[in-house]
C-alpha cells in the first residue's frame, strides 16, 4: 500500500479512454463499477469536448456480484454495438473488474459481433495511464494495420496524439505544415481523429513521425518491424530539436531538408538585450519524460538558463531521462510522489520551475515563478487560441510562456523591495504568485481596505456596522466579502439606514439576489 494524495497519472483504463475518445468510429466497453464514469468529465470539462466519450460502462453494483456481472458485460457490449454501430470495439476491465476476473476479451469473442473486437489487458495495480494509452493504441494498430503498397508520393503517419494530451491538437497542425513545406503529406494522424478504417491504411505511409513516445512508441516499434516503416526519434520541441527533426526526416526520405523559419522569433528574442537577465536563471524541470527532455535543451541552449534539476513521473522514460541528466551534470529524479518533488525543489531553491499543474502549486506555495510544460494540466492549459509546443510557432509559444512569469516575478520583486515605501503597503494584497499574502489580522481589527468608505460624497450618509453584522460578514467567503460589504452599504445608505444589523445584511442580499 502506498499513501497518496496527488497522482500524476490516472489508472491505465483512463489511458485507453484517451485513445478511444481521440478516435472516431471506435467504441470502448469498459467493465467497471458504478462511479467509474467520473472519468467522462475529464474529457467534457477539462478538454471541453462537446460529445460524450465513446465509452460504455457496465456500472455493476454490489447486488450484481457473482455470475451476474458476466451477463451484464455481454448485454452491455451487445447494446453498445446496436446503439453506436462502431467500426471496431475495444473491451477491457477497470481495476475492480480485474479482481472479479470476468475476462471481457474471452466473453466478447463468443458473441459473434461482426466487427473487430479488440481485448485490452491493462494491469491496474502495476501500470498507469500512459501505459494504458500506449498499450491500447498498440493493440488497435496490431489488429487493424496491414502491410500494403506505399503511396506514390512520400507520406507519413503522425502517431501519438490522444484526447487529453497537452497541446496535442495544435502540435498536429504545426507538424502537418512543417512536413508539407518539405513536400511530405500526412497519411493518417492517429489515434487523434482517426477511424478504425484509417488505421487499416496506415501501412501505406513511408515512415512514422512518433510525436509522443509515451503514447505510441510500442506501436511505432511494431510498425517498424511488421510494416517496414522507420520512425523519427527526435521530438521537435524547441528550435534545435526542430532543426534536428527536419534533418532526420530528410535522411529517412532522401528529400532536401527545409525549414521555413521566417516566423521563428525565439532566437532573436532570446538574443535581444532585454533577455540578458535570463542568463543563468536556475530552473528545475519536471513532467513527462518527453517534455522534460525537450525543455532541458531549450532551457540551457536556447534561453541561457542553468538547469539545476530535472525529473519525470513516468518510469517508462526513466532511462532516456537519466542519460540526459548526466549530460547536464545532475541526477534525474524519477518519482510519482509529489512530496519528493517538493522537497527536491525546496532543497535546490531554483528561481523558476517548469512542470505540471502540481509544480505550479508547489511554486505558488514556495513563491517561485512557474510555467507549465507537461500534462497533467487543468482546463486553462487546453486554450482556445493556437498554442502548439512543437515546431516554429511552438518555439515562439514556449518563449512567451516561460518568460512571462519571470517578468512578473521581477515585478513582484520590485514591489517587495519597495514595500515599505509610502506608496506601497502590505495590505495591497498578493499578485497571483502568492508567497506574499497579507499578514493575518488580529481578531476584531479591521483591515484598511475593508473599512467602510462613504463612496459617493454628498449623497451618502455615514453607515456603521454593528458588531454582530460585522461578524456575520466575516463568515462570507473572502472573495465575495468585498462585494457583499459594498452592496450592503449602498443598500443601507440609499434607504437612510445608519446602522447595519444582521437583518440589514440579509435584506440587502435578498435585494440584490439574482
Amino acid at each position, binding site marked *: *500500500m*502506498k*499513501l*497518496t*494524495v*496527488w*497522482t500524476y497519472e*490516472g*489508472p491505465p*483504463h*483512463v489511458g485507453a479512454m484517451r485513445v478511444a475518445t481521440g478516435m472516431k468510429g471506435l467504441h470502448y466497453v469498459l467493465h467497471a*463499477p*458504478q*462511479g*467509474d*464514469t*467520473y*472519468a*467522462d*468529465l*475529464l474529457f*467534457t470539462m477539462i478538454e*471541453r*469536448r*462537446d*460529445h*460524450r466519450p465513446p465509452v*460504455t*460502462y*457496465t*456500472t*455493476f*453494483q*454490489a447486488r*450484481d*456480484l457473482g455470475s451476474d456481472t458476466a451477463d451484464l458485460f455481454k448485454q*452491455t457490449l451487445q*447494446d453498445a454495438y446496436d*446503439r453506436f454501430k462502431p467500426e471496431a470495439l475495444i473491451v477491457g476491465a*477497470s*481495476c*475492480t473488474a480485474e*479482481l*472479479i476476473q470476468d475476462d471481457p476479451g474471452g466473453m466478447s469473442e463468443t458473441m459473434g459481433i461482426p466487427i473487430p473486437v479488440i481485448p485490452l489487458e491493462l494491469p*491496474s*495495480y*502495476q501500470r*498507469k495511464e500512459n501505459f494504458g494509452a500506449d498499450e491500447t493504441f498498440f493493440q488497435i494498430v496490431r489488429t487493424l494495420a496491414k502491410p500494403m503498397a506505399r503511396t506514390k508520393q512520400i507520406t507519413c503517419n503522425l502517431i501519438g496524439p490522444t484526447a487529453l494530451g497537452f497541446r496535442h491538437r495544435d502540435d498536429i497542425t504545426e507538424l502537418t505544415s512543417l512536413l508539407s513545406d518539405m513536400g511530405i503529406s500526412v497519411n493518417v494522424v492517429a489515434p487523434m481523429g482517426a477511424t478504425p478504417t484509417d488505421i487499416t491504411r496506415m501501412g501505406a505511409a513511408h515512415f512514422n513521425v512518433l510525436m509522443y513516445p509515451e503514447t505510441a512508441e510500442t506501436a511505432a516499434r511494431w510498425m517498424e518491424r511488421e510494416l517496414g516503416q522507420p520512425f523519427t526519434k527526435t521530438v521537435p520541441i524547441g528550435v534545435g530539436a526542430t532543426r534536428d527533426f527536419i534533418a532526420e526526416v530528410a535522411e529517412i526520405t532522401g528529400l532536401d531538408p527545409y525549414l521555413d523559419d521566417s516566423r521563428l522569433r525565439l532566437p532573436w528574442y532570446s538574443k535581444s538585450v532585454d533577455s540578458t537577465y535570463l542568463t543563468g536563471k536556475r530552473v528545475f524541470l519536471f513532467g513527462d519524460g518527453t517534455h522534460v527532455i525537450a525543455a532541458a535543451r531549450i532551457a540551457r541552449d536556447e534561453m541561457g538558463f542553468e538547469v539545476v534539476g530535472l525529473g519525470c513521473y513516468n518510469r517508462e522514460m526513466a532511462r532516456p531521462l537519466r542519460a540526459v541528466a548526466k549530460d547536464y551534470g545532475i541526477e534525474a529524479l524519477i518519482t510519482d510522489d509529489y512530496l519528493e518533488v517538493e522537497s527536491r525543489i525546496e532543497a535546490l531553491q531554483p528561481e523558476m520551475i517548469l512542470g505540471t499543474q*502540481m509544480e505550479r*502549486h508547489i511554486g*505558488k506555495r514556495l513563491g517561485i515563478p512557474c510555467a507549465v510544460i507537461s500534462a497533467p494540466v487543468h482546463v486553462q492549459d487546453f486554450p482556445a487560441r493556437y498554442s502548439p509546443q512543437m515546431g516554429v510557432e511552438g518555439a515562439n509559444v514556449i518563449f512567451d510562456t516561460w518568460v512571462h512569469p519571470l517578468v512578473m516575478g521581477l515585478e513582484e520583486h520590485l514591489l517587495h523591495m519597495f514595500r515599505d515605501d509610502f506608496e506601497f503597503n502590505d495590505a495591497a494584497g498578493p499578485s497571483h504568485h502568492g508567497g506574499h499574502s497579507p499578514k493575518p489580522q488580529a481578531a476584531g481589527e479591521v483591515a484598511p481596505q475593508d473599512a467602510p468608505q462613504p463612496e459617493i460624497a454628498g449623497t451618502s450618509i455615514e453607515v456603521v456596522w454593528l458588531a454582530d453584522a460585522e461578524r456575520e460578514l466575516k*463568515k*462570507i467567503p473572502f472573495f465575495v466579502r468585498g462585494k457583499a460589504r459594498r452592496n450592503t452599504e449602498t443598500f443601507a445608505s440609499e434607504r437612510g439606514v445608519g446602522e447595519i444589523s444582521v*437583518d440589514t445584511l*440579509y435584506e440587502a*442580499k*435578498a*435585494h440584490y*439576489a*439574482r
Partner: protein
Amino acid sequence: MTELPRLPVSGGCRDEPILKQRGQREVFCGLTGIIWLHRKMQDAFFLVIGSRTCAHLLQSAAGVMIFAEPRFGTAILEETDLAGLADAQAELDKVVDQLLARRTDIKQLFLVGSCPSEVIKLDLSRAAERMTERYAPSVRVLNFSGSGIETTFTQGEDACLASMVPVLPKTDTRQLMLVGALPDVVEEQAVSLLSEMGISPIKVLPAPRSDIDLGVGDNTVFALTQPFLGDTHAALERRGARHLPAPFPFGEEGTTAWLRAIADEFEVDAETFERVTAAPRARARKAIAQASEALNGKSIFFFPDSQLEIPLARFLTRECGMTAIEVGAPFIHKSIVGPDLDMLAQGPTLSEGQDVDLQLDRCRAARPDLTVCGLGLANPLEADGLATKWAIELVFTPVHFFEQAGDLAGLFSRPVRRADLLKLEAAE
C-alpha cells in the same frame, strides 16, 4: 397565523408509479462525499483504501482543493496487497502509523472502503477496532464504505454519519438533533432561528470536532437537513431517537414547513413562530421572485445525482413557476422524501436508478428548457442546444433555508439567462 403549505389540487406524487430502469449509470461513487465532509469535520482524516482509480477520482472531483493539504488521501493497493490478505492488514497499519505520525492534529480517522477493498473483502471494521484500541484515547478510528458498488455520490455522507451513530454516547436529555453536513453559515442560520423560538439544546451531526459533547437517546428528536440520509435515519432510530418528518428546507415554503414541523414538536406557539420567521420569509419570497423571473413557465428535467432532485423539483415547480418533465433520483426513500412528494403536483415522470442512454433519449425528445445533470453530460447536451445546470454545485453551494432561497433560484436561472444573453449564432 402562518398558512400551511397547500397541497396540489391534482394530488401529490407520493403514490405515483416510479419508473425503475437499470443499465449504465452516469453517477459519482460515495467517495466523493469525503470532499465536503473533510471540510466540515475539522479534526478528521479520511483514508480511502482503494486503487489508483479512487485517488484519481478524488483528485478530479476535488479540483484545486487537492492542493490545500487536504485531510484525505488514498492508500493505493498494489499487486503485493492482492496476493495475501494478512499482508494487507499489516500494510494498512503501516500506512496509518505513517499518517498519524505526520498529522498529530487528527482525532478521528475514517477508513473508507472502495470497490476494490470490498471485492477482496478486506475487513476494515476489524482494522478500525484494532486501531481504535491501539491509538486510544487520542484517535478514534471508524470505517464506512464509499464504494461505487454500494453507494452513489451523497450516500457517502450517509454511510459516514451512520458509522458514527453507534459510538455516540447515550444521553437522556430532551434535545433536538439536526442531521446533515451543511455549510457553517447555513447551519448557524438554522440554529439561530430555532433558538429564537426557544428550542434548546440543539445539537448537530456531524459536529465540527470530535470533542464536542454530542449524545443520543430516547429523548432525542432529529430533523434531517438532507434527503440522502436513509441509513443514518435508521441508525438513529435504532438508538431510540425519533425522526420529525418534514419537507426539506429549500425555498421559503420548504424552510417554513421544516421549521414548523420542529416548532410543533416543541410546542412553540403560533405568535412566536410568526415573530421569528416573518421577516426572513418575506425576504426569501422577494429574493426568489427576483431571481426566478427567467424560470417562470420553463420546463425542467432532472438526471439522477444526489437525491436532492425531488425536494428541488418541489421548490422549482411551486415557488419558481417551472414545470417538471422528469425527476430522476438515484434512490427514492419514500419515508424521507414523502412530505416533498406530497407537495409535488402529479405530472412529471419519477424515475429511480438509470439507463443513461435511454434517459438521454427521453430528454432529447422532451427538449426541456433546463436540464439538471452531471458534468459528464452537461457539455454534450449544451452542444445539442439544451441549457443545462450541472448538479454537483447544488451540493457544494449554500442553498438551504431562507437567506439562500434567492441564491438557489439563481443557480437555476443563470444558465437560462445566459442562453438568452449569448448572441453567438448571429455573429456568424
